[in-house]
């Protein structure tokens, strides 16, 4: 650390006004404040400083995502081994395989996303915002493992520019950047983002892993994908045709987008976020409540027209991206509702709409993404109504007391 500090102090004059690299001041500033607490203090007025600045918030979210990331690595390898018919599952080889599978994807999103952020920050002569730290790790986690890298790059660039930068950068975006990336991929390249052959990594990487051949009766469809296409009330199967138990779905040993299969790891992440007070428990609670209620309603009025209505409310929470969306997507403080009551309404509607889309629209077996995006758009309206109701109530109170 000492050497790093000395190095930064040595190169710092280059970035100060008049230095030859002054144009890249914000890049330097970004790195310096990322590594060390800034030693500047405010010079005027009364300011309250909290040690929990947005960089620390972002880092905690990234740490909360780590269980999902590690489990995603294991699951990616596990599905490959399973699909190839392996009998033993060596832990470290599977982890290494998963690591090698996800590494280029994380690298691509960070290079593209941070690259755009750096360029825009230089251009506008602003400080570099750290919002992409979380987004960059979220994007690979919510995409299928077989997403081509160039598609990830295009989608990341699109959503960073059109969802974040044009609105004014981190903290001003209307929609969740990671989810727009996913939605862009989903609508622009439907063949590569859904269906049966994208959720399982099928090729060996650097000599690790196996070739998975779909001709051998392997099906890489996700549980929700199978339910949407198969008949009513059928048990979802894993890739070699064994039934998936509720326990498997909870652990996450099922095909799905990289990081969102394991409800267990998402719960660990949720505990970290709630314990540190970063995510709003109101939102998580009400999303789950909304999902359970809508899942119960759909299950009560089950019909063969909508096969997903045969899933129990609990299964609705375990399958697909519902839990991930509830914990990591709906709670995004920038795009969620901000008033206390508003958070309950917002979260509840996210849960209801997610299951509504999932059950009653067979074209979109995964509704959580669209539900969160829809409610992102409505969050300001919810806040407005809550604030307005509050104002009206107080107006009445003054009138009656006067």
């Amino acid at each position: 650390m000492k050497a790093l500090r000395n190095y930064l102090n040595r190169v710092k004059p280059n970035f100060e006004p008049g230095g030859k690299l002054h144009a890249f001041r914000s890049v330097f500033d970004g790195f310096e404040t990322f590594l060390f607490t800034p030693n500047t203090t405010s010079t005027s007025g009364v300011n309250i400083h909290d040690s929990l600045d947005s960089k620390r918030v972002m880092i905690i979210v990234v740490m909360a995502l780590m269980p999902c990331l590690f489990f995603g690595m294991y699951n990616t390898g596990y599905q490959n081994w399973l699909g190839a018919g392996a009998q033993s599952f060596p832990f470290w080889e599977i982890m290494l395989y998963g690591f090698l599978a996800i590494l280029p994807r994380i690298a691509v999103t960070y290079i593209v996303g941070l690259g755009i952020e750096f360029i825009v920050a230089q251009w506008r002569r602003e400080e570099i915002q750290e919002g992409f730290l979380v987004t960059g790790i979220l994007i690979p986690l919510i995409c299928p493992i077989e997403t081509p890298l160039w598609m990830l790059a295009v989608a990341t660039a699109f959503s960073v520019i059109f969802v974040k930068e044009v609105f004014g950068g981190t903290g001003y975006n209307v929609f969740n950047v990671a989810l727009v990336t996913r939605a862009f991929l989903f609508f622009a390249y439907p063949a590569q983002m859904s269906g049966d052959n994208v959720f399982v990594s099928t090729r060996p990487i650097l000599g690790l892993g196996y070739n998975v051949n779909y001709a051998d009766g392997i099906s890489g469809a996700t549980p929700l994908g199978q339910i949407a296409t198969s008949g009513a009330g059928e048990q979802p199967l894993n890739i070699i045709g064994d039934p998936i138990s509720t326990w498997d779905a909870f652990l996450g040993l099922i095909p799905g987008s990289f990081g969102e299969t394991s409800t267990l790891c998402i719960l660990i992440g949720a505990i970290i976020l709630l314990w540190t007070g970063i995510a709003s428990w109101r939102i998580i609670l009400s999303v789950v409540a909304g999902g359970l209620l809508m899942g119960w309603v759909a299950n009560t009025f089950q019909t063969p027209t909508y096969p997903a209505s045969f899933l129990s409310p609990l299964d609705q929470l375990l399958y697909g991206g519902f839990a991930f969306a509830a914990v990591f997507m709906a709670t995004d403080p920038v795009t969620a509702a901000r008033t206390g009551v508003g958070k309950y309404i917002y979260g509840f509607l996210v849960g209801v709409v997610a299951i509504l889309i999932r059950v009653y629209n067979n074209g979109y077996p995964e509704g959580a993404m669209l539900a969160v995006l829809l409610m992102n758009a409505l969050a300001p309206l919810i806040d407005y109504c809550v604030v307005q109701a509050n104002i009206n109530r107080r107006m009445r109170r003054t009138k009656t007391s006067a």
Partner: protein
Amino acid sequence: MAEKIKNRDAFFNPFSKNNPVVVQVLGICSVLAVTAKLEPAIVMGISVIAVLAFANVIISLLRNTIPTNIRIIVQLVVVAGLVVIVDQLLKAFAYDASKQLSVFIGLIITNCILMGRLEAFAMGNKPWPSFLDGVGNGIGYTIILVIVGFFRELLGSGTLLGYQVFPQSFYDAGYVNNGLMILPPMALIVVACIIWVQRSVNKDLQED
């Protein structure tokens, strides 16, 4: 009577400085609807130029005889008549394009650019400037349509006017057409990009 406008300005202003789509933000619906491919965009543009030019001339000729109370009705009748003529001509000579455009040729009647120009220009100017204004605005509209159609067809289908642009080797290497470009939302985003570029070039169009 509107203030006197030079013929040159009446013709050239709508190209960029006073473009009906990206500055006045009129006629957006048809921009979304007909620009998934370049060819219908061009046909639509030409149709609008024709209707707008002649409607402007006719209304301008009639401008002193139209009672103010019913002027909108008169304008609508004129536009509707012209649209029917254009529609029939397309059906006769460009049947495929007219099928692709389907209802949108008929909907030129409701295109806000038409009513806007008739109200704002033709009702207060002589026929010749009105004609130039109509053609100018039609071209301004067509320019945007063609730009949007160009990008949507190129990126969404990999073709231009139906001809393959990206060689097959691109697709073999893993390139895939962007399905989102075919969907209407991307037209809005492309229009937004045009507005973005135009306002950063013309500083006087920027709003606070």
